[in-house]
């Protein structure tokens, strides 16, 4: 039994590695093979011939493609994505600086998504086929169908501009900027660590709207999955047994059915987190959120290939890890999948 589990996990780990390799290969193709002129893509069009030749050599473009690829794999494994010609900093340093903002946003988004999605999914499953089920389905579908940047714009107009309940674009109001020492880069954590609760409150009021526009979309996915997990469980015989024993419906649902969905829910939420990292790219543009999404968008307009590919690799790696890592987690936590 345990040997089999070990083998399955080993297999999964091998798949994770193969997928990382695939990711590196794809970004290599995007960065070095597909652009008509990778040098121009890297340094821009208006450079002297000497600089052009120098960069051409530096990028190893005079080498065979296979050597270039191996060099690229090596540099990615050393976490060297080259220099961003726009910020003139190493891309790794840039990403380390901006990524916490995205992480914080995606995390808040997934928390909101789970807080809405899981109860909604439970409600829909319990009231299956009734008006409530239909209503929940439609409300979730709305979140799923509306573009995340559009939801962001609407929220900004209503709750910031018209009602003034929430903070505007950016992570903080200008007069709170720079008051808190940067430790983790996660502003909420930094503010709490420093005991600066007014900064914390201001940060919350700024993160609320982008997190809600991300979280609403996420709740649609989480809610749908919750409903279907619950329905699968409700069909099982142990549910009838529990009911026959005379347990109240509440005890049946929260004592028996929900715990059996817990593992699947954890993996679903983990997957959603990966999706939100992607969605953050669009949301950040709307809210002037100084994260990885905004960094990458700016880089795209400047054809700053190193920065774009660095960001793609980071998000891609996290995405792959969550995607396949949640599968491993699932196998470890749920004995039924080991059969």
């Amino acid at each position, binding site marked *: 039994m345990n040997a089999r589990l070990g083998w399955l996990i080993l297999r999964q780990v091998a798949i994770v590695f193969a997928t990382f390799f695939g990711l590196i290969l794809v970004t290599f193709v*995007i960065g070095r093979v597909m652009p008509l002129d990778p040098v121009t893509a890297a340094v821009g069009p208006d450079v002297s011939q000497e600089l052009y030749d120098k960069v051409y050599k530096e990028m190893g473009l005079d080498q065979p493609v296979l050597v270039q690829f191996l060099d690229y794999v090596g540099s990615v494994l050393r976490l060297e994505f080259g220099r961003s010609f726009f910020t003139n900093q190493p891309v790794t340093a840039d990403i380390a600086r901006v990524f916490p903002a995205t992480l914080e946003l995606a995390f808040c988004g997934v928390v909101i998504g789970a807080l809405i999605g899981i109860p909604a999914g439970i409600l829909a499953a319990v009231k299956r086929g009734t008006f409530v089920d239909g209503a929940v389905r439609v409300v979730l579908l709305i979140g799923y169908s509306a573009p995340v940047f559009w939801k962001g714009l609407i929220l900004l107009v209503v709750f910031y501009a018209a009602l003034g309940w929430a903070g505007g674009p950016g992570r903080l109001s200008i007069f709170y900027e720079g008051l808190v020492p940067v430790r983790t880069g996660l502003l909420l954590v930094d503010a709490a660590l420093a005991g600066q609760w007014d900064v914390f409150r201001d940060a919350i009021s700024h993160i609320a709207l982008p997190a809600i526009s991300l979280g609403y979309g996420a709740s649609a996915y989480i809610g749908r999955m919750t409903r279907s997990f619950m329905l699968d469980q409700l069909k099982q015989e142990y549910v009838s047994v529990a009911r026959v024993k005379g347990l109240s419906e509440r005890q049946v649902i929260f004592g028996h059915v929900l715990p059996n969905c817990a593992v699947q829910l954890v993996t679903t939420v983990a997957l959603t987190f990966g999706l939100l990292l992607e969605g953050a790219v669009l949301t950040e543009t709307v809210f002037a959120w100084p994260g990885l999404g905004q960094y990458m968008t700016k880089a795209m307009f400047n054809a700053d290939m190193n920065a774009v590919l660095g960001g793609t690799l980071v998000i*891609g790696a996290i995405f792959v890890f969550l995607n396949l890592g949640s599968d491993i987690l699932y196998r470890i936590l749920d004995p039924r999948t080991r059969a």
Partner: protein
Amino acid sequence: MSDLSLFARVRTGQPVTSGEARLAQMWRAFELLKASPAAMAGLAIIAVLVLVAMLAPVLAPYGPYAQELANQLRPPSAAHWLGTDEFGRDVLSRIVYGTRYTLYIVLLVAVIAAPIGLLVGASSGYLGGWIDTLFMRVTDIALAFPRLILALAFVTAFGPGLNNAIIAIALTGWPPYVRIARAEALTIRKSDYIAAIELMGASRLRIILLHVIPLCLPSLFVRLTLDMAGVILIAAGLGFLGLGAQPPAAEWGVMLSSGKEYMLSAWWVATFPGLAIFFVCMGFNLLGDGLRDILDPRQES
């Protein structure tokens, strides 16, 4: 030959030719679909989308690029039902013409991505062996990639533009179709009629193209319908970031992008294109859900 009219034969399920049988099957699917108001609503939305796209020049009160610089950023009124944008262009007319971009994107992505998935998946399932293993490994790897980010990177390499965006979306969209086609092919390959064709000496290519792929189409179609909402959202996102269709195109993502600058003073410029995207995505989601319930009542998700 029965005495019934063509319509009656199709409707009552008494076809006399294979073509009629196919029609009868579609009719039965439609009858099932009618039972679900949500799916019918979705179908209606998509029907409206197609109709509006076809009749755009008739329906739109103004040209999509006609500027009235004296009438910039006017709120909705009798002359301009949804107001005007920063160049005095009629927002309603631009949304009406935008349906054409949406259909163009959706159809092209489907036409590029679905055949790749079909061919790879059907071959993988029918042939089995090491080809199957190889194809499925590659597909699994591609499935684990973040779609939007990868499309962004592709567009950066190709250069911004509508067609490049469509290629990028299609390049990131084929893996689910491989899975679907393979699953169908696996159930088909053991059936008697395939054995019969094999005995008749048909080549593998012929069997895959003419006998396996047609049977994969229904479930592929459902999956395509469900995916279309995602395709529209990614395309709109690319347009919004300025990497997809380029201004002054009357594409909804582009309209939203330029409208966001005026969100506080002229909310209608960005709000209505967003609503249009939302309704069309909703339509595809509702229809896709309904179709899935019909084809596979076991699956509840």
